[in-house]
C-alpha cells in the first residue's frame, strides 16, 4: 500500500479534529477569558510590543486555537515573548483576557513538554525553585544560575559582567540566598495541594 500523506498534517492541522482545544484553553484560564469571542481584528497583534519577535501574532494564535492546531500553538514562541504589558487586554474589542490566555498557553506548553526554546521556561523554573524553597526570590542567584543554564544567552548579552558586579557593589546586594520565611512548611503544603487541584 502506498504511503498516504495526510494533507491536513502537512498543513499543520491536527489530523483528528481538535475542536476541543479552544474550550480547554478557556477552562484552564482563571475567570471568564471570552477567548471564543475573537473577531480576528488584530488589535492585539498591532498593540504587542513583542509582536515583531513572535512566531505568530496573538490574533493568529487565536485562529490556530480554533483550527485545533495544538502542536503549532504550543510549540510557538508567542506566549513566551509576551511581556505582560496588558495593552492587548485593555484594547481588545471583545474584552478577551489575552494576557491571561498567554499564561495558560505557557502552562500547557510546559505540561505537554512542547516548549521549543526553553530559555524562558527555565528562567521561570529557576525563579520558582527559589520561591518554593525559601518563600522568597533571589535576584543575584537567579541571574547567576540562569546564565549557567543558558551560557549562550550570556554570550548573546554583551558585557553582562559589569551588571552583575554592579548589583553587588552599587546596590550593596547580598550574594547569599534570601532568608527562608518562617511558614515555609505551611507554604509547601499549600503549593502541594494547589498542584493536586491543578492536575484534577
Amino acid at each position, binding site marked *: 500500500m502506498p504511503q498516504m500523506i495526510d494533507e491536513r498534517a502537512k498543513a499543520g492541522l491536527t489530523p483528528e479534529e481538535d475542536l476541543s482545544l479552544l474550550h480547554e484553553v478557556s477552562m484552564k484560564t482563571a475567570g471568564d477569558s471570552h477567548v471564543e469571542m475573537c473577531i480576528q481584528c488584530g488589535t492585539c497583534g498591532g498593540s504587542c510590543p*513583542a509582536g515583531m519577535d513572535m512566531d505568530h501574532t496573538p490574533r493568529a494564535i487565536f485562529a490556530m486555537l480554533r483550527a485545533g492546531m495544538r502542536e503549532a500553538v504550543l510549540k510557538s514562541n508567542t506566549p513566551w515573548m509576551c511581556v505582560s504589558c496588558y495593552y492587548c487586554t*485593555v484594547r481588545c474589542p471583545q474584552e478577551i483576557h489575552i494576557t491571561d490566555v498567554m*499564561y495558560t498557553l505557557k502552562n500547557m506548553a510546559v505540561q505537554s513538554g512542547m516548549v521549543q526554546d526553553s530559555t524562558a521556561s527555565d528562567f521561570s523554573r529557576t525563579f520558582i525553585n527559589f520561591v518554593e524553597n525559601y518563600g522568597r526570590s533571589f535576584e543575584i542567584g537567579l541571574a547567576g544560575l540562569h546564565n549557567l543554564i543558558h551560557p549562550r544567552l550570556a554570550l548573546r548579552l554583551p558585557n553582562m559582567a*559589569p*551588571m552583575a558586579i554592579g548589583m553587588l557593589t552599587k546596590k550593596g546586594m*547580598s550574594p547569599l540566598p534570601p532568608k527562608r520565611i518562617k511558614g515555609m512548611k505551611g507554604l509547601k503544603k499549600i*503549593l502541594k495541594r*494547589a498542584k493536586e487541584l491543578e492536575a484534577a
Partner: protein
Amino acid sequence: MSDYIFYPGCSMESSAKAYYDSVMSVCQALDIQLNEIDDWNCCGATEYLSLERMPAYALIARNLALAEKQSNGSKTVVAPCSACYLNLAKADHYMHEDKAFGKNINEALAAGGLHYTPGKLAVRHLLDVVLNDIGLEAVKAKVVKPLTGLRVAPYIGCMLPRPDYGNRYSDTENPTELDDLLRALGADVIDFPLRTACCGGHMTQIGPGTAFELIRRLVSTAADQYKADVMVAVCPMCQMNLDAFQGQMNGYFKTDYHMPILFFTQLMGIAFGADAKELGFGSEFVSAREAMSRIGVQTPEPAADAPAKKKPAGLPMPPPLVHASQTTTHSKEAGQ
C-alpha cells in the same frame, strides 16, 4: 495617621533598596503608617503564572490570607511594586469573579491553615495611596525644596494602569497621576507619550534583543525627543530594566544614553528636604548626580530646547474631553 497593610515584595530587600529607603522616609513625612505583613512570601512575579495556574495563585493568595488575618481594622494592602500590586489584585479579582476558582484556591490555602475572603481587602499601589488618600495639597504642603528646573519624564509602566481591575487610574494608556504628583513637587514634567509603554519585563533575562529595543524606545524618546533630565519610575522591575540594562542596551545598539532612572519616592524625599544619601541616591547604575546637581546648586541648567508645542495656527483643535455628565454643546471662544 493613616494605617495600611504593607506588602514590600522581594526586590525592596535587595535590588531596590533605594526604593525601600525612600518609601520609608516619605511615608514617615506624610504620616503613613505601613504595617508589614508578617512572614509574607514572594508573589511569584510573572514567572509562576507562566508555569502553573493554581500554585501561582495560591502563592499570591497566601499573602492576602495573612493580610486579612492581620488586618486589624485597616482594609488596604499597599504594594510599592507594580508587579506585586497586580498579582495581589489579580488573585483577589479572579477569586471573587470565578467562585469555583476561589474555592479551589481556598482549599489549597486550607492545607496551610489559611483562608482568604475574596473582595475583603483593597489592593492598591503606593502612588494611588499618596495621591488619593493623602492628596496633592498635603504633598505640596511638605515641599521645602521644589524641584524647579528638573525636567522629568513620568514613567508609569504597564501593570498599574492595566488591566486596572479596580478602576483606580484615570486612563489605561495616558494616566496623569504621576505627572500631577511630580508637578506638585515643582518639577518640569514632560508630556511623555510612552508613559505606559513596556520596560521589557522579564525579557531582559530571556530575549535581550526584544528587551533592549523596548528600553531603547523609552530612553531615546525621553532623551532625544523630550530632553528629559531623569526618568521617574514607580516599580522596582521597571527601574531595574531601564537603569541596570541601559549600559547593555547602549552596547547592543551602539548608542550612548545616560538617562538616570529614579523612584518617585526619591524625588519626593528630595523635595521634602531629606538627605539624598538616606533616599538611596548613589545606588543607581546610571548616575543621577549630574542631573540632580543642576537643581541642587540652584542654578538650573540652561533649559534644553524642548520640542516646540505645535500651536494650531489654522484650524481649531477639539477641546479636552469633559467626563461623563458634562457635555460641551456650547461653543467656546476662539483662541485669538
